[in-house]
């Protein structure tokens, strides 16, 4: 023991001497950090050794998602003792995909289960890095019939591999505040409003404009129907056309975005929206101050509003959108090829995404709506929702999801989005002609995106 100590201290001494006097103090502290890490590493090797000894296999899986609620899945799964412990890592949304890409590019550091968002999925399915969930050891093909159809296509590659398992979807519709509508003397029951604006009753965006006009008039201009036409009207109308601006490599900005842009520009010109940009403090204040009576957005808004705007609980109602059902947002789960435990990662992934138990464990507290249709059979989906004043909204979402047209994704989605959004902002903020704006956007996109065609 003493010789061992001596050898250690001599080695350390040599290292210190080599590093120089000042460096030594630094090295000392660093060694301390390093020691902490190696302890962790030692614990890790123990954990991986364990399965060899007996049935109590327990590998550690890392799971990345950009929402703290990921812990819900980790806790629920870990209780089942299926042979793996899931360690959830909260990766900030704005950078989560960049972090994954960095792992692929440098060949190290990817998680066992990664989540991907619809806006970024195209950039990942077109390349490598993610395991094909249809070939051994995976057998994902059997879940195709259970998943919402448009979602399955998005997770698949053009050559038919499945690299991202559908997780949640974003069926969207028109939300409105029954209390505000009532106060203004406007129809406030879902059936009445549906009859006025929903595609299920053959209504168009023009009808939605008419209702918006009434909200504006009855309130003397103090209350508007929605916050921002660029999101509520354009965002909705664009996604009804299938979202994204590509069909294959053919750019479709003019075809797909011109009418949505015109609608939004008209809406703004008639001052039907409150001109409050989404996603910021201004918007939150707008809700709080009843500056708008509704919004055109997906089901996942419920979670945030419950937490941030509790005074609105029970006052919301939802009806299908004008013209068509559509989807906004949603995510996937994937297993990077770097994963050292693909079998257990698959076990977790199928439990989480492809079982009613896993999907509903997440859905119940958070409203993250399953793409896995058998999960909807749960009686939970027929229950009246307090948040929506007793309306059975989960059924509404399910019906909307069943009717969404296919959505094609391309690896250039984000870039095209940004180009169009920059033009769209000119339409909304500077009154640029929407037809011209989308022409310009298409020209800019063709220039910026190699291989795209007109």
């Amino acid at each position: 023991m003493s010789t061992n100590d001596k050898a250690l201290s001599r080695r350390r001494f040599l290292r210190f001497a080599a590093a120089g006097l000042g460096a030594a103090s630094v090295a000392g502290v660093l060694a301390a950090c390093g020691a902490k890490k190696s302890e962790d590493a030692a614990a890790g090797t123990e954990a991986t050794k364990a399965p060899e000894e007996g049935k109590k296999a327990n590998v550690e899986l890392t799971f990345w998602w950009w929402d703290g609620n990921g812990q819900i899945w980790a806790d629920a799964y870990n209780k089942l003792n299926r042979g793996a412990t899931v360690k959830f890592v909260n990766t900030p949304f704005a950078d989560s995909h960049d972090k994954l890409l960095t792992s692929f590019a440098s060949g190290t550091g990817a998680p066992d289960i990664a989540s991907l968002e619809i806006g970024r999925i195209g950039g990942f399915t077109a390349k490598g890095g993610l395991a094909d969930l249809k070939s051994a050891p995976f057998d994902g093909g059997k879940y195709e019939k259970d998943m919402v159809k448009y979602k399955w296509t998005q997770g698949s590659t053009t050559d038919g591999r499945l690299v991202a398992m559908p997780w949640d979807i974003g069926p969207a519709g028109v939300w409105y505040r029954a209390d505000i509508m009532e106060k203004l003397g406007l129809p406030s029951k879902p059936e009445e409003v549906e009859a006025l604006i929903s595609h299920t009753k053959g209504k168009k965006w023009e009808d939605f404009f008419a209702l918006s006009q009434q909200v504006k008039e009855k309130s003397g201009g103090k209350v508007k129907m929605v916050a921002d036409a660029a999101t509520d009207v354009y965002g909705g109308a664009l996604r009804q056309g299938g979202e994204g601006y590509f069909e294959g490599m053919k750019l479709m900005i003019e075809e797909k975005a011109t009418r949505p842009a015109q609608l939004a520009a008209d809406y703004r010109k008639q001052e039907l929206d409150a001109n409050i940009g989404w996603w910021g403090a201004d918007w939150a204040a707008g809700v709080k101050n009843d500056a708008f009576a509704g919004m055109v957005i997906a089901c996942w808004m419920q979670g945030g509003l419950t937490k941030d705007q509790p005074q609105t609980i029970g006052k919301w109602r939802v009806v299908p959108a004008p013209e068509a059902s559509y989807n906004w947002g949603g995510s996937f789960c994937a297993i990077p090829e770097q994963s050292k435990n693909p079998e257990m990662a698959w076990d977790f992934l199928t439990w989480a995404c492809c079982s009613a138990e896993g999907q509903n464990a997440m859905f119940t507290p958070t409203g993250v709506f399953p793409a896995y249709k058998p999960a909807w059979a749960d009686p939970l989906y027929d229950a009246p929702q307090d948040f929506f004043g007793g309306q059975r909204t989960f059924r509404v979402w399910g019906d909307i999801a069943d009717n969404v047209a296919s959505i094609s994704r391309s690896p250039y989605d984000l870039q095209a989005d940004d180009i169009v959004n920059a033009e769209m902002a000119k339409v909304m903020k500077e009154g640029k002609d929407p037809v011209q704006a989308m022409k310009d956007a298409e020209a800019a996109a063709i220039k910026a995106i190699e291989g795209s065609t007109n």
Partner: protein
Amino acid sequence: MATTTFTVAEQKAQDRRTRRKEAKRNVWAYVFVAPFFFLYSIFGLFPLVYGMWLSLHQWDGISPMKWVGFLNYIKLFTVDDIWWQAISNTVWLFVGATIPQLLLAMILAFIINSGYIRFKDFFRAAYFMPFVASAVAVGILFSSLFGLQYGMFNFFLSFFGVEKIDWLGSAFWLKPSIIMVTVWQWTGYSMIIFLAGLQSINPELYEAARVDGADTNDVFWKITMPLMRPVILFQVVTSIIGAMQNFDIPVMLAGGTQSSAPGGTDHAGLTAMMQLYWSAFKYNTGSKSGFGYASAMSFILFFIIVTFSYLYNRANGRNLTED
């Protein structure tokens, strides 16, 4: 005669001894500067060389790299309008934010250092405060202050009958907004640098000058400014470097959301570094984005930074490595 010879020989021996002594001393100098070169060769040079190599390729980070020669550079110079718009925004923000910020910081540093002012600690702390706030906090804070309908700035302006200004939404106001935040956050930082420079000037020099009959003006131009030149040079060069890599504040104020593009309306707040990062990590696909393309961008940016620094030095009539 003999004496002279002896003295010359003596002198030569003396010189040789001094030289030898100096050579021996210089070994220490190499030891002193070695850590930088050691660390840089591992953590800086490899990434740099790798980046050069990358800039000649098309690479999305996942698929195999594809050799394209100088095509990335050619595309950047011939067809990429957005990139040059981003460069021009960056220069615009440098002129509009960094230069006023430096001047203001210098004035404040001189006043605080002048000896006529009390409550120095208070002022210094007040000016420095913004610098300790993280970019994330600054972004959130100013996004709410700049709010169109409910923001505090518009609320105050309403007392003066000013119409609501769309600070972060309109192409016209986005740059002034970024400039305001930049000046707010960085003036204190520059002031500290200038102040440290001013403090290093020996007060005996001032006293001596006064004794020789110099007035405040003379002292300022003949003593303070010449002695401050290295510090000013330092601060201007590092500011050029920093400003050309401007990223945090524009991203926080106009980084794009689900319904807006990074850089805001008409890319008015899109900086070169933003476009570079987005190309590398977010767009990432095809022959006009990705790590190779972005590497080429970074070398163009590098070239621009070197040019600006060089021009400043020329104008300043002084070489950076000179003493």
